[in-house]
């Protein structure tokens, strides 16, 4: 039985290698590799083409890597932007209370009152579609649930007995924020942000699958799968299977990384 600390460390390093690998290889890849080679049309998976090829002779393995790189960039943007919004709003809401708190909570409810995918489509539509539309839509819409979490956590610490004690000891609010609140919130925020990543990737692929953002033959996971849909009837299952599988593996790893970090950062479960 490997303990959780080691397991998380292994998971984290594998994930980092994968993410950086996809990103680096995907961006710097010779376009030849995922380009169209009409001699190799619709080949089943083999050692030559791990994931097979499509009707234009694209190598699906390289196309998938390229697509994942795009997904990862969008995921990173979403983590940073939505994460920052959530931390700012959540903290503001809990610290100020009163009317600010109500406004923030109302904004969260409002953002959640339209189905997420419909909201994504609307924003993407408002921005005239394209890569930019997808990116901004995904980056701007992932803050509401994390905002709630952060607000609840800050509130919990703010009203805890040990913070009350600290006030009694004459500590300033700034001191309390820095010594009591931040060390509690930071791990929560990190976990929340890590867990944003897979959601963002899934939404990005859904948007591109529906045809928003990128031309259909471009290498984005959603576009690849949407493309593959046309060939389901003729039995080219590999066109959809492998790219989707890679996506799921990445998403699963991110989810479990988030969970493990959550438990490690809690001193009570950290020793397991």
């Amino acid at each position, binding site marked *: 039985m490997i303990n959780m600390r080691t397991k998380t460390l292994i998971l984290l390093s594998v994930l980092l290698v994968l993410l950086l690998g996809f990103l680096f290889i995907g961006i710097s890849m010779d376009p030849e590799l995922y380009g169209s080679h009409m001699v190799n049309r619709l080949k089943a998976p083999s050692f030559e083409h791990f994931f097979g090829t499509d009707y234009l002779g694209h190598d699906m393995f390289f196309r998938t890597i390229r697509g994942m790189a795009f997904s990862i960039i969008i995921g990173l943007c979403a983590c940073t932007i939505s994460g920052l919004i959530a931390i700012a709003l959540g903290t503001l809401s809990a610290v100020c209370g009163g009317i600010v708190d109500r406004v923030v909570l*109302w904004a969260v*409810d*409002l953002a*959640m*009152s*339209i*189905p*997420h*995918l*419909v909201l994504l*489509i*609307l*924003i*993407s*539509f*408002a*921005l*005239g579609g394209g890569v930019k539309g997808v990116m901004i839509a995904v980056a701007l819409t992932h803050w509401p649930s994390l905002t709630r979490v952060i607000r609840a956590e800050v509130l919990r610490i703010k009203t805890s007995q040990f913070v009350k004690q600290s006030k009694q000891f004459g500590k300033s609010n700034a001191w309390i924020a820095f010594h009591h609140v931040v060390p509690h919130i930071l791990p929560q925020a990190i976990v929340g942000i890590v867990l944003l990543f*897979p959601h963002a990737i*899934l939404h990005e*692929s*859904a948007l591109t*699958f*529906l*045809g*928003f953002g990128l031309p259909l033959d471009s290498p984005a996971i*959603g576009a690849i*799968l*949407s493309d*593959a*849909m046309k060939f*389901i*009837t003729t*039995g080219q*299952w590999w066109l*959809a*299977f492998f790219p*989707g599988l890679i*996506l*799921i593996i990445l*998403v*699963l790893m991110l*989810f479990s990384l988030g969970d493990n970090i959550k438990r490690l950062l809690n001193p009570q479960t950290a020793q397991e």
Partner: protein
Amino acid sequence: MRLTSFCLENLLRLVLLLAAASVITFALVSAAPIDPVQAYAGPENKLSPEQLALIAERWGFDKPAPERYLMWITSLLQGDGGISVIFQRPVTEVLAERASASLLLMATSWILSGVLGFVSGIVCGLKPGSLADKLIKAVCVVLAAAPTFWIGLLALSIFSVALGWFPMGHAAPVGLTPDEVTISQRLHHLFLPALVLSVSGIANITLQTREKTIEIMQSDPVVFAIARGESKFQIIRRHLLRHIALPAVTLQFASISELFGGSVLAEQVFSYPGLGNATVNAALNVDVPLLLAIAMVSALFVFGGNLAANIFYGVIDPRIKRGYDSHD
């Protein structure tokens, strides 16, 4: 008395949210870099500038945005959503037709995911660590991470293409008029999309119910019940079900937003003629009246789900029912 005011308060809050959502939707759609007059006339119109100006005047495209919003929202409230550009029919007509197809699909998978998820969650939670638990849990974790459209594609290639059990998509056999379609044909077409749409719901409900069941079975009231000699059956009926039904039903109502998103994807995969399919077409083909109306309908769905969840909670949870404010 308390329950009524509780419901009214919730209703008021949700109506306000809905109003705000309509403003945001309108603002987003208006912000799109398109010429509304051209978009309204359709891409291949050969209308003269005079005719275009008439359209602009009729729909108020020459007026400032707030005024346009008021025009839109008042006519929408009167049941007039304008004319859909793609279908060349009144938006409300299109909506009614599409919504009924979508409702059938969503309701089926909503119930399916609720029932299956709840039952499998209890099965897992009663015997955590058993083989069945490990298996179901692993499957659910994977399914929760899998995009709906990918599962749809897999289901299509396995059950429709390879095995030939189900049709390739659509709500009914192609070429038949609606009154020629039999109920069994409808169900046959409905089954696979409904199953695919329910998958993520099943996974989420199962995982949540499992956690909750484990927690409840170790809680003080249940341990005390065991000590009082209550049988396993009594414990499940008297304690467990009450405690896990609340969060499960709440989650199930709250998941309507995701269900709608999922239906957009599932309908796309199965070419199912519902609201989701219409959403994508409206957005891709710049059908502004239809897009606006669908966005509002989707918000109504979420609104209904939240309202139902809140009222359900108020009716079931004794603490709210008795108007009890907890304080520490």
